[in-house]
């Protein structure tokens, strides 16, 4: 029975990864689709491919952070992890339905924290780990934004004498394929690792693995496959918000935004920091918007997005706590 429950929760974790893929697919491909570089069908295939191969490039340090630095591993049980995942999935589906680009990662962290608090109170939270993650909730979008502005200024400075703007745009339509691929690689690396971290925590909690164990290869492959499959199914509501509602993008701006976000994700993945890929690309898109003028950014839309960010952790946490109480009644 325990083994069956274990596999069921692993399946739910992979389900979360799948939802993450179609929820966040928009981030990787919104700019490529909105600038007309690729058709939606080819764009999702392109993104899914690079989501999958990310496991060949990056390690599993983010997974270790999620597994060991959010909640005291001793508190984790199948019920807590299941409730945490359900809290994150339900919140993701609500924001997906509303078309808000919130962070699946923060939903997951909020969900795990909420379920753990429901079980043993606030003492179950790892204050140091949450502080590190919390700081990067703020830093990641600022990182993407700053890099995007600097990149845009560099591009404008290098090409300011070019008279043939349409030819320049054609060039950047091609470079955008590379930047979208790099961003998808970063997305696959950082986000798939969060699911790996959850499965690792589960396997350790169930004594299937020792506490010091790394992520097994089957978990790595399963997580990357799930996120890539999710990306393949796509999420068009959020593409619309990301690709045109915050600010309108030309190929050159798409290239700058994706390259900046990819660089930020590569850095944080290498350092083992679980960041929101959504926040990072949103910051970068706002960044390229500000190089035109402040009014090029639709601050009312950006403001709604920020509110959704602020509410993600507490609301996903409360949902998870509620699910945990229900699970407790039936177990």
């Amino acid at each position, binding site marked *: 029975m325990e083994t069956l429950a274990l596999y069921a929760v692993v399946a739910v974790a992979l389900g979360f990864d799948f939802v993450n893929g179609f929820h966040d697919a928009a981030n990787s491909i919104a700019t490529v689709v909105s600038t007309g570089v690729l058709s939606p069908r080819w764009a999702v295939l392109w993104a899914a491919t690079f989501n999958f191969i990310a496991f060949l490039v990056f390690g599993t340090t983010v997974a270790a952070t999620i597994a060991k630095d959010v909640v005291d591993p001793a508190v984790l049980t199948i019920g807590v992890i299941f409730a945490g995942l359900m809290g994150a999935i339900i919140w993701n589906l609500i924001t997906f339905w509303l078309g808000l680009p919130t962070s699946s990662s923060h939903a997951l962290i909020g969900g795990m924290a909420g379920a753990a608090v429901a079980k043993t109170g606030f003492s179950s939270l790892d204050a140091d780990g949450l*502080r590190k993650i*919390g*700081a990067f909730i703020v*830093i990641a979008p*600022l990182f993407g934004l700053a890099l995007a502005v*600097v990149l845009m200024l560099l591009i404008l400075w290098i090409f300011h004498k070019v008279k043939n703007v349409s030819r320049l745009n054609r060039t950047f339509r091609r470079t955008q394929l590379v930047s979208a691929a790099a961003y998808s690689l970063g997305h696959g690396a950082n986000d798939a690792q969060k699911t790996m971290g959850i499965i690792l925590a589960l396997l350790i909690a169930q004594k299937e693995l020792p506490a010091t164990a790394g992520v097994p290869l089957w978990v790595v492959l399963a997580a990357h496959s799930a996120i890539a499959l999710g990306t393949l199914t796509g999420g068009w509501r959020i593409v619309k918000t990301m690709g045109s509602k915050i600010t309108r993008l030309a190929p050159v701006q798409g290239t700058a935004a994706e390259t900046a976000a990819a660089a930020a994700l590569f850095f944080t993945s290498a*350092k083992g920091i679980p960041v929101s890929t959504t926040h990072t690309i949103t910051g970068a898109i706002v960044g390229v918007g*500000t190089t035109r003028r*402040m009014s090029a950014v639709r601050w009312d839309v950006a403001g709604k997005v920020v509110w959704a960010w602020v509410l993600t952790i507490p609301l996903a946490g409360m949902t998870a706590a509620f699910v945990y109480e229900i699970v407790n009644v039936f177990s």
Partner: protein
Amino acid sequence: MDRRAIFFFGSAVVCVLMSLVVDADLEYVTYWLAAVYVVLGLLSTLDAVSRRSSWGRSGT
């Protein structure tokens, strides 16, 4: 003052504040970001000033 410059200077302040929260081995990230935002704020201010003065010249 230029709204964009205020946004960049504000971001620089937030980055400095974040240095109080992040781990010591990652503090340099916040300082670098703050420095980049200060430079962007200064550039934005200069841009706004030069636009205003060139607009003033063409207006007279």
